[in-house]
């Protein structure tokens, strides 16, 4: 302890992370557009980006806030439809409408998060899970029916909302991933983020430390919903067609599985799991008829042998790794992480 440890200044850490991220985006884009890889890899890479955003956003309410919402796909749907309706019904050129659409999708989903969060968060544990499941299903049923029953021409019901400009690219999807991870990270490493964590750890103690738990629960929940909305907006721009059945209960479960498999409360874990689980069905094509069976067995096996998820609560930090390198303690950090979430300490 006598030797002064090297610590990386914060500005340097941000700079390094930003540089690595820029390198990833530019490099990734260069590789994908060079034609060296089959073009479906680009599709999968975009999809992974969208799934990563969905997973890290759910991780806010699951991993950080410690609740178990089962209606996350509902927020994705809200964001997707909000942005798609905005993009198709206004005459704004797609280049401008798309970023605006993402913001609108996130904002509307966030608003839904508040509206649903206020009643739902009065419940705890499994009851919260069930009530959010209910809200998620109601969102889907409403999207499916407001055309046929109420006569609006909004969502186009089961026929699907078509003709959405396909504006999602590898670069904008992953820029959004970067932005999402950065904002979630900076939120979590602040007094607000710590308040959210304290609720997960012990609600009563949090309250008696002066933390307004209703406010922070709703805040975290709607933040989670907002980022899910952004993921939905990207999804709309990725597929060009929206159908409420794409956002059912099973989609919520799919996202939850990513978060739990990666390790609840670990952003790096969510990212890794989103990548693995999105790529897995493609990779398992070799197994053809057996691929869903293999997938389910992998899921069960992981849970049995590593119940806390692949990475537990470990979070990747470039800063920490550099500091450990300099201080010669790297042996302690052999756990792998992705070069994404810009963590500082």
């Amino acid at each position: 302890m006598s030797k002064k440890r090297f610590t990386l200044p914060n500005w340097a850490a941000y700079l390094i992370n930003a540089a690595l991220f820029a390198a990833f985006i530019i490099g990734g884009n260069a590789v994908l557009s060079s034609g060296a890889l089959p073009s479906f890899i680009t599709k999968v890479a975009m999809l992974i980006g969208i799934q990563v955003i969905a997973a890290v956003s759910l991780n806010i309410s699951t991993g950080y806030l410690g609740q178990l919402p089962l209606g996350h796909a509902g927020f994705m749907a809200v964001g997707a439809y909000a942005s798609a309706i905005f993009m198709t019904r206004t005459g704004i050129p797609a280049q401008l409408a798309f970023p605006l659409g993402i913001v609108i999708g996130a904002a509307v989903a966030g608003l839904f998060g508040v509206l649903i969060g206020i009643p739902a968060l009065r419940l705890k544990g499994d009851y919260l899970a069930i009530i959010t499941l209910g809200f998620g299903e109601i969102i889907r049923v409403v999207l499916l029916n407001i055309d046929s029953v109420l006569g609006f021409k909004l969502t186009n019901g089961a026929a699907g909302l078509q003709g959405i400009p396909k504006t999602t690219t590898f670069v904008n999807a992953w820029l959004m991933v970067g932005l999402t991870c950065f904002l979630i990270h900076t939120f979590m490493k602040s007094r607000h983020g710590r308040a959210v964590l304290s609720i997960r750890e012990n609600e009563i103690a949090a309250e008696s430390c002066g933390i307004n738990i209703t406010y922070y629960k709703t805040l975290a929940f709607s933040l989670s919903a907002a980022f899910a909305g952004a993921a939905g907006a990207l999804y709309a721009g990725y597929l060009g067609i929206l159908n409420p059945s794409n956002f059912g209960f099973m989609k919520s479960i799919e996202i939850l599985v990513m978060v739990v498999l990666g390790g609840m409360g670990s952003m790096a874990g969510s990212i890794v799991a989103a990548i693995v689980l999105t790529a897995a069905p493609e990779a398992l094509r070799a197994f053809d008829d057996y691929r869903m069976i293999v997938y389910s067995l992998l899921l069960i096996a992981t849970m049995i042998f590593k119940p806390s998820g692949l990475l537990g609560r470990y979070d990747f930090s470039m800063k920490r790794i550099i500091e450990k390198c300099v201080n010669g303690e790297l042996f302690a950090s052999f756990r792998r992480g992705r070069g994404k979430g810009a963590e500082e300490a």
Partner: protein
Amino acid sequence: MSVFTTIIKQLINGLQSGSIYALVALGYSMVYGIIMLLNFAHGDVIMVGAYIAWMMMARFAANPIIALIAAVIGCTVLGVLIEKAAYKPLRQSPRISLLITAIGVSYFLENVAQLVFGANAHVIPTFIDDTPIQLGQIAIPTTALITVIVAGISMVALNVLVKKTRMGKAMRAVSEDAGAAQLMGININNTISFTFAVGSALAGIGSVLYCCAYPKATPTMGSMLGLKAFVAAVLGGIGSIPGAMAGGFAIGIAEALVSSAGLSEWKDGVVFAILIVVLLVKPTGLMGRPMTEKV
């Protein structure tokens, strides 16, 4: 046809589907009561039961009673096997890991069923004479009558089992406080397995009743049925046997009424809306015990 008879008919329709929901809901409720697990694979156990019933009747031309017994035994064995293989190793793990495992088991069963039985729906031969019984102006379908009666008997039997037998007492003790029950010499593992066995046996009965009302089996039939039954269990107060029954009937009747009002597309929405309202007013369901945390 008068409005009155129409309403009575709709109520009968609701009671029939409600009794099936109730039987399935009981399985959810019992398992939840004892290990606090939302057993998502429960719906798929019913699917397997339906396939067993189909195999017995369509392939081996067995008598419906034998098919029922086979389905019950099959489901019971499957339920216990799932518990031993997938859930038992996770007894000490966070509950969410258990939940994800249950989802994995559900995927697994669905996909294995598709591989084994094919994607095609299998039709179960009608085995109950479906001439409706005329009661004044109201025609009651025989299947509805049988479903309600069998479900009623099963629930009474379950109640006796839980209230009067040694194993039932052990079940209640474990769900109250597993640690204390263990200190009193109750074998936790056996009790949990037994709970799964009973829950799955009820699912087996439910699957046969389901088949006699809606005679087809598909690999994915369990997921929506399971979800609805689960909602029923929560609505009634999860962990409570009369609650699960009440919840099942409530959902069955609500669905029937919404459908008959010409709003069937909103049916799922209405079911979940009822659930939300009930939970907000009474957070532990209609008949659930209140939860308090000691400070």
